[in-house]
């Protein structure tokens, strides 16, 4: 049998099985109880309130602490047991270290700036990477529902990531945004830094047009706040929503068991894509854009 026929047969069995399931079980009608947005709801596990500000310990805090602990733990553990003949874990971390050092930092900053900002950029990369990757491990954190494992009542398994909540990418972005402006002012002085926002080749232009272009450039500086944070947040959130709906959420919502059989392989394909590409790519993009912004703020001329 040729490969083409095998693939066609596989697709035929898959679609046929789903249709057979649909005919056998039919639809239970729309499920009004299941609320997909509850999967991303943050329950206060330990309610804390300081001066009217809610600082409760919840799921996002748990994931944030977990990601930070993993980042620090893994890097310290690897650096303590460095060997002449590296094993697989050390090789993998060395590849990532090399990427952050030579590609992200070295490629966008000059030697002095690179030495100063490499620790920050590498930490950003590893923190976001760990945060994204543990977001795809099902952990028992959904306190709305409970499941029974060997007579033990546990919160239901759910996927969530610290970066799927806008607060964490926004906090990281604010740190980046403030620090590259401070670096720019330090390198060129306040007036020189603001003047360097104008693109080169405008020397002969009249002041009114220059002012107009300056306003546009200033707006684009503020737009970076939104684009940098929302890019990371939306990528991870959309990935989690896709996995939720494809991996059974759609079938439960519509009460169609057959739809679950149809969408589950899609969920698996998306899981591989998200874990293999998007998690690493978003960490890479966030830190390389930080390096580009830092480099752009301090470069002598464009």
């Amino acid at each position, binding site marked *: 049998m040729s490969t083409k026929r095998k693939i066609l047969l596989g697709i035929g069995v898959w679609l046929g099985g789903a249709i057979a399931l649909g005919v056998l079980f039919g639809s239970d009608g729309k499920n009004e109880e299941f609320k997909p947005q509850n999967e991303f709801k943050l329950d206060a596990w330990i309610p804390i309130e300081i001066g009217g500000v809610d600082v409760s310990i919840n799921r996002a805090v748990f994931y944030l602490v977990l990601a930070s602990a993993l980042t620090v733990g893994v890097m310290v553990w690897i650096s303590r047991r460095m060997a002449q003949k590296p094993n697989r874990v050390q090789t993998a971390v060395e590849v990532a270290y090399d990427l952050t050092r030579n590609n992200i930092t070295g490629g966008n900053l000059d030697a002095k700036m690179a030495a100063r900002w490499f620790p920050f950029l590498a930490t950003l990369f590893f923190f976001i990477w760990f945060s994204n990757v543990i977001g795809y491990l099902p952990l028992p954190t959904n306190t709305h529902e409970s499941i029974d494992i060997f007579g033990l009542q546990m919160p239901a398994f759910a996927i969530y990531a610290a970066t799927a909540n806008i607060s964490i990418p926004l906090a990281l972005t604010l740190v980046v945004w403030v620090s590259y402006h401070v670096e720019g002012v330090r390198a060129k002085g306040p007036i020189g830094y603001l003047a360097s926002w104008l693109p080169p080749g405008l020397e002969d232009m009249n002041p009114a047009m220059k002012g107009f272009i300056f306003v546009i450039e200033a707006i684009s500086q503020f737009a970076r706040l939104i684009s940098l944070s929302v890019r990371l947040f*939306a990528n991870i959130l959309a990935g989690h929503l896709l996995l939720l709906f494809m991996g059974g959420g759609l079938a439960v919502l519509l009460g169609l068991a057959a739809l679950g059989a149809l969408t589950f392989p899609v969920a698996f394909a998306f899981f591989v894509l998200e874990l293999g590409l998007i998690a690493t790519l978003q960490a890479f993009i966030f830190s390389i854009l930080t390096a580009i912004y830092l480099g752009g703020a301090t470069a002598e001329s464009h």
Partner: protein
Amino acid sequence: MDLLIPIAQAAEGITDTGITDAGKAIALGVGAGLGSIGAGIGIGIIFGKEIESVARQPEMKDELQAIRWLGFALTEAVAFYTFIFGLIAFFL
């Protein structure tokens, strides 16, 4: 929306909240659906140009790879901006 309500209410059984829900669903559909068209075209252009460049200059492959992922991620994010605004319209 206000213009549509009297017309819709002429038909029985359609309420104001029903129309609002329909508007929200349309917002999410347009945000997620139409938004991905542009990003899809953009990603296609990025990968197409990269294949073209590597075919012309195979020795540039490694350098182009890093630029390609940067461009891919920046373009892909545009689809998610519209998607997020669709979600905001749907849930808020």
